[in-house]
């Protein structure tokens, strides 16, 4: 699994779980900012998306929020979190 595999699935999750318009998620680049300086996702959005990621990729995140919130900066950092947690990265 690579970032190119993960990112489209993340975009689909953002449309479905965060109720974002498909045009908005489709237009996101890997480095587009997702949090308050960019798309504007807040902590509740991130939790919802995290639940979706756990479900979609069969993962479990039990560490405190502050350790995984930073990964929501962009689709690129988010896909790194997924790949790392799945053991696909060094």
């Amino acid at each position, binding site marked *: 699994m690579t970032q190119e595999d993960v990112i489209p699935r993340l975009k689909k999750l953002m449309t479905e779980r965060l109720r974002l318009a498909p045009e908005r998620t489709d237009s996101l680049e890997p480095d587009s900012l997702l949090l308050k300086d960019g798309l504007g996702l807040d902590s*509740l959005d991130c939790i919802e998306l*995290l639940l979706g990621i756990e479900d979609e990729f069969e993962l479990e995140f*039990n560490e405190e*929020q*502050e350790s995984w919130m930073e990964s929501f900066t962009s689709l690129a950092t988010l896909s790194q979190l997924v790949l790392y947690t799945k053991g696909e990265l060094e």
Partner: protein
Amino acid sequence: MSPLRSRYAARDVVVTAMGVISPYGQGCDAYWEGLSTGRCALGPLTLFPTDGFPSNVGGQVDADTVRSLGSAVRSRANRFVIAAAEEAIHHAGLAPETLRDAAISIGGAGGGMLEAEAWYAPYYHGRENPRLRGALRTMLPASQTEALAVRFRIEGPRETPILACSSSAAAIATITDWIASGRVDVGLAGGVDSLTRICFMGFNALKLLDKRPCRPFSQDRQGMSISEGAAVLVLESHAHAAARGARIRACVAGSGIASDAFHPIAPPANAEGAVRAMQEALTRADLTPREMGYVNAHGTGTIQNDRSEAVALEQVFGAGNVLVSSTKSLIGHTMGAAGAMEAVATLLALEAGVLPPTANLDVPDPEVPFDCIAHTPRSNAVACAMSNSFGFGGQNVSLIFRHPCTFE
């Protein structure tokens, strides 16, 4: 004890009795015994299956206590609130005709949802059980208030305020307002929540539950611990209480209610709504922060709440200028009942001259610049104390109580 002395005004609001159901058991005596010895009542929940969820730790009223409350009343929440009200009314010694015109405000978030969940599961799977349908009649939080009105034949103005974790603190502020304005002379104010599967699942889904008993104000805190219980206070105008020779436990000196209008669950970093609620309470009580000897904090143990609350307390009191502790560290977060249960804890502390501790506080957070009374109760006869509730959705309520010795 402070030199504060003033005279009661006829419409000052006083507390004349209290009743509690808590994870320590039934009654104020059991409640104070647990609080004043700093005994943490949190542990694995057994009321419903918890498999598959990250955290299963919380507070639960023990099965023997629940059984002793009888099964005449359908919902667990209604059993709790009736028992708490019975204790309070018994100790207040109110005549039936006085009760008839009393007001009631009982806050709560979940109502009889525990029993409604049990109806819904088979319904969802297409096998509705008509014998469980009665749960729908006690599902709404309003049924708690109705249960008290029916049991005690009360016909005064009543309401069921829902402000998430601040519900029953708002109930106390409400009854105080209605007495002060002359709408009523007497009121029952309190709250109740029973554990529900939805509450347990939801806080797990939000990743807000500690896997261990919660550790408010700790550097390594990881979240809250859900819990359940009920508390009811009898409030009266001073004139009414004095005329019937009632024992005055404390004066509700002031209260503040303010909204953040910020986010569905997160508090703003500047804690602006919490600050306004505390400042309004102080203004209405005609007291300064210096005159406050103790703050019973909202203190849930989540990273965000405790940080935001510390900011608010520092803004109002200045760093280190008041003793603080979290009852939730001992009994967990009792949701809609928390405001009233923690008000009772504050009142019992005022009476006894002993401040309950913050349990599990092994490594205090250096960003919380207050003595949070770690582990061991503290003997300290304070004259005035504040109890805060800062609920989901930016609902902030602050209550201030004065010891009777501060009145002539």
